[in-house]
């Protein structure tokens, strides 16, 4: 009898494990295809052979510039920003046990974005200063909304409401900064208010790439505890997970990642919001969906950027496409949550 139930559970676990591997590898393959498309497609489509030769450092008239200076940085920015947004968004959603509580809605990305704009247009600084400032601004925004929403009793609803207000304020700051800097042009505004991969440059990328390589493993490993945290504070403590420390580490790592991603691409709308739920749907309940969520983020950003570049007569920045895809899902989610009385 006992044996039977054990085999039953083991079988279920194996099955979910298989599903996880299947989903993850599918997402990885899809990302590779999209990456390839990012390198291949453009105003001129070069032969694959030339692209590979250009990537390996050979100088080929035209190809080298298009691939190495324009398409490759764009692709890398998309990959790492997408991964950071997807992973960090999922962390927030799981930790706060509410899909609406993601860095986008809470205004954290807007905080980083405002800091990046301030550094670029007012201080005219570059590189590390921008990265530092946006991380600090991201953390400051988190602390600010947390302190403001603590009040007499903490509630997610209050947190989200305050996040929306903080976001409105920071957006006003961004508009103001863009205006006084006389850079009130549409591309700049679109980049810093909704996110774009246009004009990504190789030398801007290292902080983001390094931070993803450092923090993503931490987050994925600690994420195991996250599924225990999801059971609630008391159960987590009794199962031996130090809730405060884990939470602190997770928040710090995720904020560092999204802040750096935001300082390179702008706050790409809704990626951090969509990735977690999509990954959860694909992987199923009971397994960590953090890594898949990151991959979903990559796929979303790359696919949206390709759609934005080539599906229409004009080129749309990636944030507009993800905004149009993401907002109806947000509305659907609201309707579902309202029906169930979860809000």
């Amino acid at each position, binding site marked *: 009898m006992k044996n039977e139930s054990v085999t039953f559970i083991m079988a279920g676990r194996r099955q979910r494990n298989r599903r996880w591997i299947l989903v993850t590898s599918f997402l990885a393959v899809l990302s590779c295809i999209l990456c390839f498309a990012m390198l291949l497609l453009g105003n001129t489509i070069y032969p694959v052979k030339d692209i590979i030769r250009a990537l390996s450092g050979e100088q080929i008239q035209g190809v080298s510039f298009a691939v190495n200076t324009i398409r490759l940085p764009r692709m890398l920015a998309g990959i790492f920003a997408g991964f950071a947004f997807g992973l960090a968004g999922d962390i927030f959603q799981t930790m706060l046990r509410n899909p609406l509580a993601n860095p986008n809605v809470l205004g954290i990305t807007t905080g980083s974005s405002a800091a990046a704009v301030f550094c670029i247009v007012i201080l005219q600084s570059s590189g590390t200063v921008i990265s530092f400032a946006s991380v600090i601004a991201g953390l400051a925004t988190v602390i600010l909304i947390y302190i403001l929403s603590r009040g007499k*009793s903490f*509630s997610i609803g209050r947190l989200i409401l305050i996040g929306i*207000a903080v976001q409105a304020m920071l957006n006003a700051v961004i508009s103001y900064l863009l205006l006084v800097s006389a850079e009130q042009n549409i591309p700049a505004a679109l980049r810093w208010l909704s996110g774009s991969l246009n004009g990504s440059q190789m030398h801007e990328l290292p902080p983001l790439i390094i931070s993803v390589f450092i923090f993503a493993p931490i987050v994925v490993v600690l994420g195991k505890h996250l599924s225990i945290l999801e059971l609630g504070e008391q159960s987590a403590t009794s199962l031996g997970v130090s809730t405060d420390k884990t939470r602190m580490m997770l928040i710090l790592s995720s904020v560092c990642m999204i802040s750096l991603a935001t300082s390179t691409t702008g706050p790409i709308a809704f990626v951090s919001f969509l990735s977690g739920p999509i990954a959860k749907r694909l992987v199923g309940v009971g397994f960590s969906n953090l890594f898949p969520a990151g991959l979903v983020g990559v796929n979303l950003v790359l696919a949206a950027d390709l759609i934005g570049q080539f599906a*229409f007569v004009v080129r749309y920045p990636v944030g507009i496409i993800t905004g149009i895809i993401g907002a109806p899902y947000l509305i659907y989610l*609201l309707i579902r949550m309202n029906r169930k009385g979860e*809000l």
Partner: protein
Amino acid sequence: MNSSVVSKVKIKQLSPYIPKHFVIVLVISFVLLIVCVFASLVLGSRMVGLNAVLDGLFHQGIDSYEANIVRKRISRTVFSLFCGAALGVSGALMQAVTRNPIADPSILGVNTGASLFVVCGIAFLNISSANQYIWLALAGAAITAAFVFGIGSMGRSGATPIKLVLAGAAISAALSSLVIAIMIPRSHVMDQFRFWQVGSVGSATWDGIATFSPFLIIGILIAIITAPALNALVLGDDVATGLGVRTGILRLVAAFGAVLLCGAATALAGPIGFVGLLSTHVMRLILGPDLRFVIPMSAISGAIILSLSDISGRLLGSPGELEVGVVTAFIGAPLLIILAMRLKVSAL
């Protein structure tokens, strides 16, 4: 100004009760209003002297450079006052209808709905006059308001603040992506409506004001007429019905008034946020909850807030100017935070 006179007469007829500071508040508001008008004529990226203001206002014959600047600023000032009044009253009505302290045309996404319709009209129907914008904006505002309220009030607990705000934020995000997507490929639409993303009163013309005025008057009349019944509605649907108020029709009429006001304002100025929230709460704080006083006074405070924001925008953005929508968002959002902090968890 007209409206407050009407309401004062009504108040005397209907009720012996007048809030304690009402007269003082009224006087101070009017003084502030006059100061605002004066400041709005004088201040800007180029300051003008008192003589020039007098020349510009009263001596049409004098054609100095500064007098012409003042004349340009007159229409802008009038429009910012009208627009602020409309947004203030609209916010007060929305708060009463949804029985929700954080309702405001911008927070509920209604302004963005109006913008989307206008941008569509310009892009696809080649519409280009204020007369036509206004109807599109009204349609957009009405549809969005119904949609947001529909989503926000689903489920057992009804329309709680958090549900309404989230529905508004979601729909606003969706619609503003669409607005940008429609604008990007059409440079003429973009040039025409760049200020739309944030809202501006700088391009006001007398024609626009003339188109706007009837909507303002009708909207404010509706607000003043429904105010006593809305007072009952605040106590709850059951109590209101018991007091002889037909809640369904009242809600519809008051919501119509709110949409009329914010739709028309958005049609001409673009989405300007938080004015309704600010003006109503300031007045409620001073005068108490009686809507018969709060509604007309939010018209005045809305006008003051918007024209002050416009003036600050001109000074902060000099030599260009900062759109008034940016300024109102910056000063209005903290109020939203304070309100969110004060709400009880059960009320969220």
